[in-house]
């Protein structure tokens, strides 16, 4: 997993987790607040409904009391009810109907002391029916008010009823009056079309929705209110039970609001996720790019490639790391040079010892033959020709041995494999990357210089050494370092099959002795210098089959001319 991916993966939860926690908290608080307001509203509505029912009960009591006073004063009704005067029976039968309409009631029935209906306002022709449940149970209902199921010719209806007594003579009649509880009544209780009030009875259900338009949405019960109900389903076993007024609302408004909160919460999370990803990408890129570049440079380093430059002006950790890598590379470069020198010296010493041994082996017979011939010439000169002739073969054999030895050692140095490179390209790429210090670089690359038979790395190292020396030769003084290329050998029209690379500076130049020492190994005029630069240059140029010339004089600067073989076919 890349460093960039890790930064991305780390940033997203770091941003998202607090946000989600915060959002969930806000969402929960808002939902609770909204739901609380709804509950409060419904509670207030239920309280109002309860108060309305109480008011209706009080209003019923008032109207029944007035009806009672009127009935007591009505002599025709008294005649019909008490004395059962048949001539007044029709009047009595119609009495409740007239009184009911006058009192603004929807239900009214007058019953005698045996609970027989003698006059009914809502069902005129129901007279003489026994109705024991209401006189018995209504007084036991809380506040004397209860829901009842009244009858009409067209069918039953529900009414909020209460009872009053009507004393006539020695008999006590009862008056049961009520208001119709229908969908309109429930709608008036609900007040708000968004709220429905339903009446749940043991065998029936009545809702305000039938009286209001737009009841298409599904209501949910949010509160309920108990209401006493006289259940007369079984004719002879009426009982007082609890009905329920159910307050319901679609809750769509609440759910819509909560849905909006959820929706914006999701949008905020997604937006934050997007921003955090973009930000994390940018941050990861900003952090990882220098590291990737550093890794790329580091990957280029090996024993043969220690010219990678690490330089950074950054003050952060990556900059410090790059500088440390640069210093490490410098140390590695110096160590490599020393190691190579040690290896070269060790190899040279071993070779020298082998050569010494082999040469000694070859010289020993020669020395012996020559010592013998010298002894003969001194002691027996006459025999010298004869002895020489006898020992001549030994001399020839030794010489042949030495020649063979020389040929064999010559084979130990295999011809280097020739590489090709575009001189101008390598020169431009190399020189432009080199630090010039206070010096000014002048790059004069001739057109069509072409390809040289030299490895690009070798040419690069040649140029690095020469240009570095040129810059250092000017010290702190300003000057110009001119690097130029041209086709052809010696200036003025040398060998045409060569490419010339010239590094020229306007520095302090060198004396002849300084020039001689300059090409010696381990000679350096710079503090901390290794002293291998020009030696390496000469060896690389020589290995490429080229040649190196130097034109210098004290105070006039130096001019290093490198000629390398051109690729055949190059103009």
């Amino acid at each position, binding site marked *: 997993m890349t460093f960039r991916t890790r930064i991305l993966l780390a940033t997203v939860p770091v941003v998202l987790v607090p946000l989600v926690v915060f959002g969930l908290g806000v969402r929960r608080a808002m939902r609770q607040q909204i739901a609380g307001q709804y509950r409060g509203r419904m509670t207030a509505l239920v309280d109002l409904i309860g108060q309305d029912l109480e008011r209706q009960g009080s209003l019923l009591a008032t109207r029944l009391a007035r009806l009672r006073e009127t009935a007591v004063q009505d002599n025709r009704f008294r005649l019909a009810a008490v004395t059962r005067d048949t001539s007044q029976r029709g009047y009595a039968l119609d009495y409740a109907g007239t009184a009911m309409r006058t009192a603004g009631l929807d239900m009214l029935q007058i019953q005698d002391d045996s609970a027989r209906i003698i006059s009914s306002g809502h069902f005129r022709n129901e007279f003489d029916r026994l109705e024991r449940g209401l006189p018995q149970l209504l007084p036991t209902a809380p506040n004397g008010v209860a829901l009842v199921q009244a009858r009409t010719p067209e*069918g039953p209806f529900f009414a909020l009823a209460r009872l009053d007594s009507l004393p006539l003579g020695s008999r006590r009649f009862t008056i049961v009056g009520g208001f119709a509880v229908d969908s309109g009544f429930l709608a008036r209780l609900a007040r708000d079309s968004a709220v429905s009030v339903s009446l749940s009875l043991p065998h029936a259900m009545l809702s305000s929705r039938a009286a209001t338009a737009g009841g298409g949405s599904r209501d949910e019960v949010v509160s309920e209110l108990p209401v006493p109900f006289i259940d007369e389903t079984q004719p002879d076993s009426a009982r007082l039970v609890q009905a329920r007024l159910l307050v319901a609302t679609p809750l769509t408004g609440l759910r819509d609001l909560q849905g909006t909160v959820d929706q914006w919460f999701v949008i905020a999370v997604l937006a934050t996720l997007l921003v955090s990803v973009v930000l994390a990408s940018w941050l990861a890129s900003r952090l990882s790019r220098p590291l990737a570049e550093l890794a790329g440079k580091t990957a280029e380093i090996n024993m043969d490639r220690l010219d990678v430059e690490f330089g950074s002006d950054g003050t952060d950790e990556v900059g410090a790391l790059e500088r440390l890598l640069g210093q490490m590379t410098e140390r590695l470069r110096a160590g490599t040079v020393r190691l190579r020198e040690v290896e070269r010296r060790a190899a040279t010493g071993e070779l020298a010892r082998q050569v010494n041994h082999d040469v000694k082996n070859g010289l020993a017979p020669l020395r012996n033959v020559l010592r013998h011939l010298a002894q003969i010439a001194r002691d027996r000169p006459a025999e010298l020709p004869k002895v020489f002739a006898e020992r001549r073969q030994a001399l020839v054999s030794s010489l042949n041995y030495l020649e063979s030895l020389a040929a064999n050692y010559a084979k130990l140095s295999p011809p280097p494999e020739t590489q090709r490179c575009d001189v101008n390209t390598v020169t431009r790429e190399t020189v432009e990357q080199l630090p010039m210090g206070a010096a000014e670089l002048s790059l004069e690359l001739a057109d069509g210089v072409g390809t040289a038979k030299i490895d690009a790395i070798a040419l690069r190292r040649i140029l690095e050494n020469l240009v570095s020396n040129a810059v250092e030769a000017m010290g702190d003084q300003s000057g110009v370092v001119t690097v130029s290329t041209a086709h052809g050998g010696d200036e003025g029209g040398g060998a045409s099959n060569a490419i010339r690379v010239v590094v020229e500076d306007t520095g302090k130049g060198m004396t002849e002795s300084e020039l001689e020492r300059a090409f010696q190994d381990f000679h350096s005029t710079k503090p901390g210098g290794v002293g291998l630069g020009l030696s390496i240059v000469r060896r690389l140029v020589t290995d490429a089959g080229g040649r190196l010339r130097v034109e210098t004089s004290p105070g006039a600067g130096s001019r290093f001319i490198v000629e390398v073989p051109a690729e055949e076919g190059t103009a």
Partner: protein
Amino acid sequence: MLETDSTPTPERLTIGVAGIVDPAHAPVPTNDAERFVFRQVFETLVRLDCAGVVRPGLAESWQVDDDGRQWTFTIRSDARFSDGTPATGQGIADSWTRRVGPLPGGTPVFTISGRELTVRLSQPVTARLFAAPGLAVTRPVEGSDWPVGTGAYAADTSGGRVTVAPFGATGRPVLVLRPSGGGDERDLLDAGIDLLVTDDPSALGYARSRPEFTMVALPWERRYVLAVPGGSVSLDSTVLVGLARDALRVEARPSSGIPWWADPGAVACGVAPPPGAPPLGVGTSIVALVYPAEDAVARDLAGRLVALGIGGAPRALGLAAPDFSAALSSGGATGYVLPLPAVTLEACGALRLLIARVPWLADDAARHLTPLVESRRRAIVRRGGAAFTVEWDGTLRVR
């Protein structure tokens, strides 16, 4: 006969009747207003008085031969249509031929001789048949909505108001109709109405308290029955008395006697259900005691029957006239409170019309129909007004 004080006849009488007069219905009425107007404008050969006695009408006399198959009427000498043309035997024959199909006694064959019109039938009939409104004599007039009749009046409905004016120098008053019903009929009395036929106890009580009005009971004209498609219901006399006395606010009495649909003669006339009549119980899912919503008597009867649990119907259901007719025809309800005429001129024809309206009665009308009560109305007449004749069906005719 209804005759008030012998003061001079006023020039104009305002009559309160329910319903809208449509000349297209002439001469067969469909409501009280048409019945009153048509009875003034059109005449039948004979008429029945309130006691059911046959009286001269367009014919001043008549003879019956061949056991009731041949009837010879002598047309009144002064009989004229309201446009002045004489009403002849040919005119009567033309009127019947134009409008009336076969009579209950068969297709009539006319013989005309001067003022005598002989009607020959294949079956014997009674003289009551010739008092039927359908046999009133009319003659269409080109360019007029109203046909002309031979009565003392001619009707005019131009201007949206019904005016029945006498023609000729008869000294009869002009009759102006004012619709009643739907509102408080006491307002009509206060507005100066001269004749009001009603059963509204409030209006009757109010008129009783007003000395300028007198009241006359009209014949028992309507009989309410309980029609049960699935069978029959038997009610004892106590229930019937209770219905008439307590359940209704109009003048009523328990139904008595043999109703016309149970008349052996009517039953024997051989009615059969019309082809294509729907089977019993098909066409509606109403399970209730159904009554015509506009009929207060039927409503009270239905309510009381429901209260008593008679017929097993859980509730009463009032239906407007078209819906009631459809429901009655289908027979899908538990029962029907049905108003029928208390009397009819020709029981067999009336039963045939009833079965056409209620096909499921065809198997045995008497079994499915239980008589409940009979009701009647009263005429409230302003004293000092015109004299009226009460006819067999309770219709008043200005003398």
